[in-house]
């Protein structure tokens, strides 16, 4: 059995999730520590993709191929993304941080620790390069008290996944960034997940827009780190009008 087949079987065997119809809502995470970022936005669909895969694969999630996107092979079942989709984009906004005090940077050091090591019999441990290399990490963070996402999806599934698995937001959560204290869900009358009051809430490919103020080459679907998922998109926060179709 090859690797892909193994994960596909795992996804087929996973217990079904009961689906509710799509509904628009707002979810607010109240934070206990600042959020560390690697891009200016945290996208809710990537977050949810991570959680649903974790729920589906369980322990096998941690041995998934790191640089191979297996999502194309997974079956369309109740384990698919519980989000409404238009074209290729999900109805999920980028995070809105409150208060938005701008970006700060913290310098952290990752060093070889002799107390945890079984390599002390070696004559020399190279710190300049290789496995034990020292790093001076710059941790860009936003000292926000809450992060809000606008979503249109299956609320019961999303709520269950967040409740069970999501304890922090952003990068380097293992060292304490972005801890979630609690979260609130609130229904909204309108779907603000893509455009709200004329402002783009997430990267939107320009083909989907009639007018736009600012565009850049951005990823518009997860995985957001993959350059193959990039195209010219309307920048989140800039003015735009969607095509009527």
């Amino acid at each position, binding site marked *: 059995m090859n690797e892909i087949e193994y994960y596909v079987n795992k996804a087929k065997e996973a217990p079904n999730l009961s689906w509710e119809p799509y509904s628009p809502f707002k979810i607010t995470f109240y934070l206990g520590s600042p959020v560390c970022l*690697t891009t200016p936005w945290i996208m809710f669909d990537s977050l949810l993709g991570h959680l649903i895969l974790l729920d589906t694969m369980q322990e096998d999630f941690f041995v998934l191929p790191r640089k191979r996107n297996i999502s194309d092979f997974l079956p369309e079942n109740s384990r698919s993304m519980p989000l409404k989709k238009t074209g290729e984009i999900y109805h999920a906004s980028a995070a809105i941080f409150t208060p938005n005090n701008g970006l700060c940077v913290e*310098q952290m050091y990752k060093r070889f620790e002799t107390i945890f090591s079984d390599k002390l019999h070696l004559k020399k441990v190279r710190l300049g390069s290789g496995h034990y290399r020292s790093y001076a990490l*710059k941790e860009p963070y936003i000292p926000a008290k809450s992060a809000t996402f606008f979503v249109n999806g299956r609320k019961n599934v999303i709520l269950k996944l967040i409740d069970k698995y999501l304890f922090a937001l952003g990068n380097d959560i293992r060292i304490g960034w972005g801890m979630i204290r609690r979260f609130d869900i609130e229904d909204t009358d309108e779907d603000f997940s893509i455009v709200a009051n004329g402002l783009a809430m997430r990267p939107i490919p320009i083909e989907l827009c009639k007018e736009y103020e600012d565009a850049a080459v951005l990823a518009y679907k997860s995985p957001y780190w993959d350059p193959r998922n990039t195209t010219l998109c309307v920048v989140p926060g800039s003015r735009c009008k969607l095509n009527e179709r």
Partner: protein
Amino acid sequence: MKKWYNIGGCGIKVEQAKDIIRKALSQYSKPYIAFSGGKDSTCLLHLVLQQKPDITVVHWDFGPYKLPRVIENQILENAKKIGARDIRVYTSDEYQKGRNASKVFERNFFSKVIPELASQGYDCAFVGLRKEESCGRENRIDANRSLGLIEEVWPIQDWTWRDVWAYILENNLPYPDTYNIYGPVLGWDRVRLASFFDLDLEGVGTPELDGILMWKYKNIGGD
């Protein structure tokens, strides 16, 4: 910062730098300036051009993937605004590989560009190195150790970051926009012009920061 120019001793350091340049120009027959486009080499360029307006300016281009063209064009434009006439831009085809290209500058500049300049008769390089930047640089300056075949001269070696900004503001010199993006976040004492999204700088953590501050250029190599 402008006050610093008068009361912080910056004026004296400027005179010292001018002396170093004057001596070097009388000692060497064919000098050039190494110009990265950063704040230090901007000051150096302005200082040297006052005494030798036709000096050759040598600039290394880190390629479209590591230095967005908008910034590269701005650097060259700034050099022209300051008064540079003879600007030579060197680069390498290896940068076409993209952001994974590693140690290209180190491999090419010292083994190809400097020998080429030496063969053309250049005998002295003005470099905007400062002792304050790192212990390694301080040791190199103290030991008078040049990296290539051509003798290096460091006119602003004793300047601090305050002196550099004071000189730029006092003389109204143009500098790349990236300083205004990174300065408020990193601090004006720490901000430096380097290549962006460069895996060679991963050890000092700048690619993480580039992903946020230079997000517009993250997925593009061209304009």
